[in-house]
């Protein structure tokens, strides 16, 4: 296993060099795949998507097969990020979700759990108590049995155990670092995504901005303490200290972003990482370029950001302090392998130090990329 250990260290250094803008002879590969790994498997007979998402042994086999075929340096997930086993345990009690077992998809409906904007403060005072006494009875009007809760707890434990196991396998057998010690999603994100709904959130933000300030004052200390705790842990087999995810800025103008997300959460988060010599893998959904004024406050050597919609060369100009991970997915799906490699070459040469590969889209369907294009691009990135 010594080779895997050395490879893991080498990969950690490659990633550090990207974040620190140190010139490299190869370009690290970060994969942002979800179900594509499963759709690409050569297992015979091919399992269904639902089997893949709910059978942890099968998931491990698919992840191993994928790693052996493509050997990426780093992955956003080794299986799935969403625990489908809980849905199985609750059977048909989740009326706010729509389950499509054939496709392996669960959709969460836009439900207003809070009912009124002021409830966000009650939630902030004690999230677990609020969830148990107010949220769950609202979302499960027919109630839940002790057996369902017991099974759902066991499902959570099984999934957590899988994550421990697959991380150990990928670290020790394949030399691939785990992504990050902590995952930071600002609590305000959940208010929009799950508790109030996007429309209500958007209206509340304009009508009662002081509620958002109060909510953030209550929630930010715990959020930041978690990042600080991550920094106090040894780096171990991780690539980054924190995985920072920005989603709800898409509903905000720049002033709202600065007031509700940057000042309470993300600005201090990056300060903590910088102070501790740690790094963040940051995902910015939608458009990111307009956030440059805030991101210019962060010193070089802290962030590697992967993004979706913006031009990478404009991003480089606007944020010369931030390393980027980017590759336009359509080149993997609709172009020839030669064209896909030419695009990789253009990015490697044009972006210079502080660049690594990552598709600008999470890949979920078989058509999202062609195997021959992926293999050709990876070959180039490893040997240019």
């Amino acid at each position, binding site marked *: 296993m010594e080779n895997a250990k050395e490879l893991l260290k080498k990969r950690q250094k490659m990633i550090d060099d990207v974040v620190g803008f140190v010139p490299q002879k190869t370009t690290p590969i970060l994969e942002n795949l979800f179900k594509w790994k499963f759709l690409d498997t050569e297992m015979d007979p091919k399992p269904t998507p639902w089997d893949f998402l709910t059978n942890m042994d099968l998931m491990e086999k698919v992840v191993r097969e994928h790693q052996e075929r493509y050997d990426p340096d780093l992955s956003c997930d080794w299986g799935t990020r969403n625990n489908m086993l809980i849905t199985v345990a609750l059977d048909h009690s989740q009326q706010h979700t729509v389950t499509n077992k054939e496709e392996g998809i669960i959709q*969460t409906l836009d439900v207003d759990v809070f009912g009124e904007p002021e409830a966000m403060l009650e939630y902030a005072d004690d999230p*677990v108590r609020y969830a*148990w006494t107010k949220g*769950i009875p609202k979302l499960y009007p027919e109630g839940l049995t002790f057996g369902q809760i017991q099974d759902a707890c066991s499902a959570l434990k099984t999934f957590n155990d899988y994550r*421990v196991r697959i*991380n150990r396998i990928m670290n020790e057998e394949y030399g691939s670092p785990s992504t990050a010690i902590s995952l930071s999603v600002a609590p305000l994100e959940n208010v929009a995504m799950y508790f109030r709904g996007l429309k209500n959130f958007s209206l509340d933000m304009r009508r009662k901005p002081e509620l958002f300030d109060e909510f953030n004052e209550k929630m930010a200390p*715990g959020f930041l*303490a*978690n990042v600080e705790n991550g920094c106090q842990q040894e780096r171990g087999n991780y690539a980054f200290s924190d995985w920072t995810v920005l989603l709800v800025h898409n509903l905000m103008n720049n002033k709202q972003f600065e007031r509700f997300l940057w000042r309470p959460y993300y600005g201090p988060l990056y300060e903590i990482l910088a102070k501790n010599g740690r790094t963040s893998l940051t995902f910015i959904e939608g458009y990111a370029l307009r956030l440059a004024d805030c991101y210019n406050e962060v010193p070089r050597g802290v962030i590697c950001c992967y993004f979706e919609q913006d031009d990478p060369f404009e991003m480089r100009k606007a944020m010369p302090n931030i390393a980027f991970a980017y590759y336009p997915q359509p080149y993997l799906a609709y172009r020839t392998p030669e064209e896909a490699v030419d695009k990789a070459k253009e990015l490697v040469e044009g972006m210079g130090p502080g660049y690594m590969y990552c598709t600008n889209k999470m890949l979920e369907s078989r058509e999202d990329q062609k195997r021959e294009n992926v293999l050709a691009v990876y070959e180039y990135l490893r040997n240019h």
Partner: protein
Amino acid sequence: MDRNEKVKFTEEGYQEVLNAIVIDSGASSTEKAPGNISSFITQGAKDEKEAILKELATNLIM
């Protein structure tokens, strides 16, 4: 508690469930899966059982 018993979503009901649930030992409970510590809501839990119930409760309303 009986498996078919309806859970009470009150503070007392929470304690009853916490006392009754059983978490199988699997991977070492001292090992952290990546991303788990991000669940700052579970900080302060006295053991793995409490951490899992807290995580489940907050996940069920998402």
